[in-house]
């Protein structure tokens, strides 16, 4: 045995990804790469008005086109596709996959075409003529709340999707409200910061647009549906329910998925229509979204307005926080729409000891594309609002932004920390993360550098933000789908390992990280482990990948399933080696009695014995396969600190990001290389929001940023080299100690950049700038300062 190299422990190492060979050679299979004999293509005719009654749909020309199989209006589709369900408990207006009589946003589907190929399908869709009786559109959410000039859904007066939900100090479980504490906090304030802040609308913009292939096989009575989704098991549940099929009769597959960022959680009308039409027509149906459609038909993110009031003493001690949130739902509730602002509410406590907090959430319909989850989903909004307010407080008190935070941080010995918002923060050391960020950024020197630049007339500013977010979603009480994750582990007869996970990845690298975990758990080479995912025909159960839950919840399920199989395998090994199962060691591809590696068996020999168990050890069934559901007792609460430096061109107002330092604490890390990639990606989206991204509508409800020529997602030239570091504070919530990291980058970056812009323009008396930092907006501030 001495000649066999010892297998290195893989967890914690920067292992290059096992997914990559197929991806870097163009050999991966995304939805649009799937072809099935007899497959026809689906295209949607979409509304070009934001609000109107459909008076006539002329499908004659389209129907007569060569190659067109079928054309359906919304009313015809509604005969076999019921209104779409949502995943939140709030009342919601009916939402048809294809509008039946009224359109409520530009881009809403009004008719569909099935045709031989995508070109013919598109031609035919374009040839459908729809007449509308136009209704006034409302795009501004505060305007919408007046009920003027239009009410979008008749049973929702003043366009209130969710009239008002209170939370925080003094709010009872029955929503009874006691104002004593919050009134006292503000009465005792020496300084109050009050600011209206808009967290603007964003287009998630996965580079792979959405797509679906639905294949109903009438002979089997079974449906297979491939979709670019983050959660194939939820898709299966919904497709089955909407098509009168059992969940056993639907197989949902997420093949290679080209990014999601929250926008591929929702189950969309296009998926329902493709499935239903495949069943109706008995043929495979493919629909692939083009980018112009993606801008109007894929859910948007953020779009929430806040009125923030922060009460403090002049030494920086925070006394109370009032946060009035008004969220823009868009025209309809989607799967999780109504729940996203409640996550903002949940995280309103941020990293601080705040004696009294009052938050209210109101959600409003407008004639715009529906909103839903986008990376961070509710938590970046909370962080942004609170961190902006903390920054304004520091500026008002002429305190260093780090000092005002230090004054108010929850202390390490206070965890678990129950907030007034109902969250129980699991573990943390916020000051440690901030101190490391300050050290890495050379904060003191950086301030001197800024001051020197300013003295020369340059507009240079520094920003700092800390964050805590809620990840590892979550206990089943918090998700309508259930909050667990599932995994199955099988030792094959040849000693190789197959494992399944319900955490369906779309870039997160689970095949690598989960492989690392199992290789270590069983003491076998990584190459002997295969991680299967994204197919409900293979993965028995699952929830999906969102809310930074893959590792914390899915990884733990894998670990538990592996543990069960390992325990059984130890029993077989004990029988073979005539030893106690408690003394069995798995290491280096061998299974042996502690202290006697030479007399053991190879991993494969023990596996083979388990499948031909002669003799069968008493009390054991043959085989090595088991599964686990992991239900976390709580969420996890990662945290960190981001620091940025920007310069604004005095003549043009153009901002340039000079520096971004991030310290993130996601608990224990499985693969630091992949973690870095996740943080980089989150930073890019957070910086994108702060600096260049915004979905803009005109007053008629027409989106005027409906292409990548008008909606700016960041390019490589928009960023400096990010400077990353981490602290490690494990969570007690799961045995891995892992908290989750997929969204972290979007949390701290956004407020720290706006803080830096305000700092850069401080000479003009500005205390807050709404995102994004459009040069024109900054230029006007500079000009105003001069006049």
């Amino acid at each position, binding site marked *: 045995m001495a000649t066999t190299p010892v297998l290195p422990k893989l967890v914690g190492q920067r292992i290059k990804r096992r997914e990559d060979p197929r*991806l*870097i050679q*163009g050999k991966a299979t995304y939805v649009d790469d799937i072809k099935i004999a007899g497959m026809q293509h689906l295209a949607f005719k979409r509304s070009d008005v934001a609000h109107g009654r459909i008076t006539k749909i002329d499908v004659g020309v389209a129907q007569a086109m060569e190659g067109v199989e079928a054309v359906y209006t919304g009313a015809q589709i509604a005969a076999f596709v019921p209104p779409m369900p949502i995943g939140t408990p709030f009342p919601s207006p009916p939402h048809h996959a294809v509008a039946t009589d009224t359109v409520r946003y530009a881009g809403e589907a009004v008719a569909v075409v099935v045709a031989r190929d995508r070109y013919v399908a598109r031609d035919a869709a374009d040839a459908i003529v729809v007449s509308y009786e136009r209704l006034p559109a409302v795009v501004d959410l505060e305007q919408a709340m007046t009920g003027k000039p239009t009410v979008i859904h008749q049973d929702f007066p003043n366009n209130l999707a969710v009239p008002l939900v209170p939370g925080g100090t003094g709010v009872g479980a029955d929503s009874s409200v006691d104002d004593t504490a919050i009134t006292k906090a503000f009465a005792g304030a020496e300084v109050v910061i009050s600011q209206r802040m808009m967290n603007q609308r964003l287009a998630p913009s996965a580079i792979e647009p959405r797509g679906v292939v639905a294949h109903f096989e009438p002979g089997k009575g079974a449906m297979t549906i491939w979709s670019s989704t983050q959660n194939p098991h939820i898709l299966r549940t919904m497709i089955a329910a909407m098509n009168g099929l059992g969940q056993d009769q639907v197989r949902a597959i997420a093949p290679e998925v*080209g990014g999601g960022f929250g926008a591929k959680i929702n189950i969309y009308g296009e998926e329902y229509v493709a499935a239903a039409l495949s069943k109706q027509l008995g043929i495979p149906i493919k629909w692939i979204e083009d980018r112009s459609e993606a801008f109007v038909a894929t859910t948007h993110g953020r779009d929430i307005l806040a009125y923030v009031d922060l009460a403090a003493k002049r030494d920086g001690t925070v006394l109370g926080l009032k946060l009035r949130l008004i969220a823009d739902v868009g025209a309809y509730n989607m799967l999780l729409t109504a729940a996203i602002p409640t996550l903002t509410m949940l995280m309103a406590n941020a990293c601080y000891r705040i004696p009294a907090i009052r938050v209210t959430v109101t959600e409003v319909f407008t004639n715009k594309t529906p909103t839903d989850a986008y990376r961070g989903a509710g938590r970046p909004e909370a962080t942004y609002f609170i961190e902006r307010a903390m920054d304004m407080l520091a500026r008002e008190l002429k305190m260093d932004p780090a000092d005002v935070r230090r004054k108010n941080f929850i202390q390490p010995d206070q965890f678990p920390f129950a907030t007034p918002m109902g969250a129980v923060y699991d573990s943390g050391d916020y000051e440690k993360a901030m101190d490391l960020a300050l050290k890495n950024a050379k904060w003191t020197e950086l301030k001197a550098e800024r001051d020197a630049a300013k003295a020369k007339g340059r507009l240079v500013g520094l920003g700092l933000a800390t964050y805590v977010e809620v990840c590892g979603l979550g206990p089943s009480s918090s998700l309508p789908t259930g909050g667990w994750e599932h995994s199955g582990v099988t030792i094959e007869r040849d000693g190789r390992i197959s494992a399944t996970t319900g955490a369906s990845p779309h870039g997160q690298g689970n095949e690598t990280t989960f492989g690392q975990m199992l290789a270590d758990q069983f003491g076998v080479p990584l190459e002997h482990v295969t991680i299967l995912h994204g197919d409900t025909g293979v993965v028995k159960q699952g929830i999906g990948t969102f809310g930074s839950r893959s590792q914390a919840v899915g990884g733990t399920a894998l670990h538990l399933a592996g543990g069960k199989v390992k325990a059984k395998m130890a029993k077989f090994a004990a029988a073979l080696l005539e030893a106690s199962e408690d003394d069995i060691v798995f290491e280096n591809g061998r299974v042996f009695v502690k202290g006697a590696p030479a007399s053991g068996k190879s991993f494969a020999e023990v596996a083979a014995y388990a499948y031909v168990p002669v003799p069968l050890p008493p009390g054991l069934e043959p085989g090595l396969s088991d599964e686990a559901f992991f239900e976390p007792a709580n969420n996890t609460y990662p945290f960190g600190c981001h620091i940025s430096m920007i310069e604004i061109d005095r003549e043009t107002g153009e901002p340039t990001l000079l520096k971004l330092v991030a310290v993130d604490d996601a608990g224990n890390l499985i693969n630091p290389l992949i973690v*870095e*990639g996740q943080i980089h990606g989150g930073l*890019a989206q957070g910086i994108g929001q702060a600096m260049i991204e915004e979905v803009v509508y005109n007053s008629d409800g027409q989106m005027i940023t409906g292409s990548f020529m008008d909606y700016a997602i960041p390019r*490589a030239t928009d960023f400096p*080299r990010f400077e990353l570091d981490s602290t490690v504070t494990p969570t007690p919530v799961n045995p891995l100690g892992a908290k989750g990291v997929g969204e972290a980058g979007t949390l701290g970056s956004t407020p720290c950049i706006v803080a830096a812009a305000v700092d850069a323009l401080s000479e003009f008396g500005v205390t807050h700038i709404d995102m994004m930092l459009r040069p024109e907006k900054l230029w006007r501030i500079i000009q105003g300062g001069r006049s």
Partner: protein
Amino acid sequence: MAQVSITVNGKVRKADVEPRLLLAHFLREQLLLTGTHIGCDTSQCGACTVLVDGRSAKSCTIFAVQADGSTITTIEGLARDGQLHALQQGFWEEHGLQCGYCTPGMIMSAVNLLNDNPAPTEQQIREGIAGNFCRCTGYQHIVNAVQNAAGKR
């Protein structure tokens, strides 16, 4: 219909195509070279980037008929004799991809960049791939990947 003859990854391909057929669709639908992806309608994202006569080009903005007589390399044609191209290797080693959807186009743009400038600075790399969107990585590991590949040449 129009007849085209295009050399793709070393093989001459003759086909009858609709004059409006995009080169990207010709590659994907007719030749089944699905490594070339489509991410936008406006030539912004670069997922469809291939080499046309040795220069990077966005194949969603070229009709197949315009490519008649040209020589095209797609991501599938980059590895030689089972050996990954230095850029493919670099993207793998440096974790230059996550969902992988932008990756083929990103790599083809980087091939063009290193052909023009075998030892680019970081800024030149960032400018060289500015025609390709990646929504996952924040680009830093992509820059590292290109540096990794440049260092091996």
